Structures are given as structure tokens and as C-alpha cells.
């Protein structure tokens, strides 16, 4: 905790955003449209189960850390082997969701996606590959119900290949009865 021992001023030219400038023009409140709410089914406190039905971890999804704009994820396995965090935001100009994930296994994933219709899943995030040789990876949300859903992390070597599961998690909302 050395960092708190020197509470210091930093000399700053510009942060990444210009809040005062934005306030001066009084734009409509950001992130209020229904398109910003299409990932809200994910919000909540969840227990993660493997395909054998064993509880392996927890995931807490919130939507109030940055106004109405950002949905945050806090995931950890019960054994501490995977601890991670993501932020997701809808970008109206691109009509696309963006997610960034970091974890304790040196993972950094930059993903884009959005709602899906006419498929076996209702939402997808696909990894933006950092290099051409990187595998294609995506996560999908399927069988989404008020208190449960299935999450699949999938990959394929080439764009023309079929997606294959590499990690499947059954989520159940904390406190919800089994089968709900």
C-alpha cells in the first residue's frame, strides 16, 4: 500500500475526456436509449457452474459504475485460479458493443459484438485478433432466462471453421431456486 503513503498531485495537461466542455453544451444524458440496455439481462450476482453441475465461481455484473454507460463484470473462480474483470459499452456510432477483459493469467481481450436474432444465442462478443495468426475467439450467451443462462467461450482456427466450445459455464442467479 505504498501508494497511499504519498498522496500527491500529478500535473496533468489533459485527461482522456473533457467533462467540463461536455457539460457546457448540455447534451442529452448519455447512454439512455434502449440500445444501451440490450446487455442488461447479464446484470446481477451469479453463481457459475461447470457442465457437471459443480459450482466453480461467482460473477458480479453491475451497470452503475459509470453512469448508465458501462456494464462491469467481476469474475472469480472459487479456487482463485481465474480472477478477471471486464467493461462493456455500447457505441451508437458503430451500432456495436465493445468489451475489454483483463485477468490474472495475463489475459487482455478486446471484443466487439451485440445482440443476435435468429440464432441459438442472443448475444455475442468476438475477439478482435491482435495479430493475423491469432485464433478466432468469441463468447455467446444462450438459453437466457430471468435467473439463468449459459455462457460459452468458443474458438476456431480459421474463419471458415465451425466454432468449438473451449469453456462452458451455466450461470444461476444467486438465491434463485434450481431450475428457475
Amino acid at each position, binding site marked *: 500500500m505504498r*501508494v497511499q503513503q504519498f*498522496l500527491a498531485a500529478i*500535473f*496533468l495537461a489533459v485527461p482522456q475526456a473533457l467533462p467540463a466542455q461536455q457539460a457546457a453544451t448540455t447534451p442529452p444524458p448519455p447512454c439512455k436509449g434502449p440500445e444501451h440496455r440490450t446487455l442488461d439481462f447479464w446484470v446481477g450476482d451469479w453463481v457459475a457452474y461447470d457442465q457437471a453441475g459443480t459450482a466453480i465461481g461467482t460473477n458480479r455484473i453491475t451497470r452503475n459504475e459509470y453512469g448508465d454507460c458501462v456494464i462491469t463484470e467481476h469474475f472469480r473462480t472459487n479456487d482463485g485460479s481465474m480472477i478477471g474483470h471486464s467493461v462493456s*459499452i455500447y457505441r451508437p456510432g458503430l451500432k456495436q458493443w465493445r468489451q475489454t477483459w483483463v485477468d490474472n493469467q495475463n489475459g487482455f481481450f478486446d471484443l466487439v459484438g451485440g445482440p443476435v436474432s435468429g440464432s441459438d444465442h442472443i448475444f455475442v462478443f468476438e475477439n478482435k485478433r491482435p495479430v493475423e495468426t491469432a485464433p478466432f475467439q468469441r463468447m455467446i450467451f444462450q438459453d437466457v432466462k430471468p435467473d439463468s443462462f449459459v455462457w460459452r467461450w468458443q474458438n476456431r482456427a480459421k474463419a471458415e471453421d465451425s466454432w468449438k466450445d473451449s469453456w462452458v459455464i451455466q450461470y444461476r442467479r444467486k438465491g434463485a431456486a434450481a431450475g428457475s
Partner: protein
Amino acid sequence: MLHAATLALAAVTAAGQTAPSGCSAAVNRQFDFWVGEWTVTDSASGQVAGQSRIEKLYDGCAIRENWTSAGFTGGSLNAYRAADGKWHQMWMDSAGAVRHFIGGVDSAGKMVLTAEQPRPGGGAVRLIRMTFTANADATVRQYSDFSDDGGAHWQLRPFL
């Protein structure tokens, strides 16, 4: 930080391993000088611009920025990405902005991160650059400029 550190210790115990985490390499610590609880002052006006809490998380694999100023919150996730050998910063905020900065440490030890920002109505992409410098007095200087000509010329981004 204390919470994350506790979790990290638990993970080592559960796995029965004593090996260092995968993020203890020097390259993963290049941005550690930014970690801390900061009062941020605009050097031009001398006014306090906001508060920023920079956390080192997830066994040292990521740095999270938590920015707060009047009526505004934002944050970023920062990590060294072995896949391309660069530092990445993804910024998101309560105004709906998203910026993906990519870069690394220069020969002087400064962290230099650059994002591409599409221009309204098209035209050349604006490059936004941030340079973080660890000062000798344990403060940090964050300087930001931009370029509309692909990096040939840079101009200061004023704060207000």
C-alpha cells in the same frame, strides 16, 4: 489493492504452487509508477481537475484507473499484452466515450499511449497521445496532445 493481494495469496495456496505469477516480469511493472491515489491538477490553471485512483489488480496483470470529477466518472483497464508486445489501455466513461490506446515505454522510461479517434463527418483519423512521466518527486506528469496528420505534427490538447 489489499483485497486483490489477499486473493492472490489464496490462489497460490490453493494451487500448492510457489512459482511467481505470470505477470511478475519487469515488462508487467513498467506502468507501476502510475499506481496510487492521486489528486489531479491541471498544470495550466493550477486547479484541481479531479481525483484518480489507480489500482494494480489481478496478480499484477492489470492496472485499473478510476477517475472522478464533478458529474463525471470514467476508468480504464491497462495491461501489457504479450501477443503484440504492447501496452493497451481501454478507456470508457459516463459520457459514453470509448478509446483504445496502444503503446509502451520509450527509451526515457515514459509511458506513451496513442489512440485513433475517427473524426465526425469523416476525414483523417485524429491521433490522441498520452505521455506519462514519473517525476523525481513521486508525482506523475500526464501530458496529452493530438495529431490530425498521422503524427507528423502534434498539438497540445487543452484540458478545458
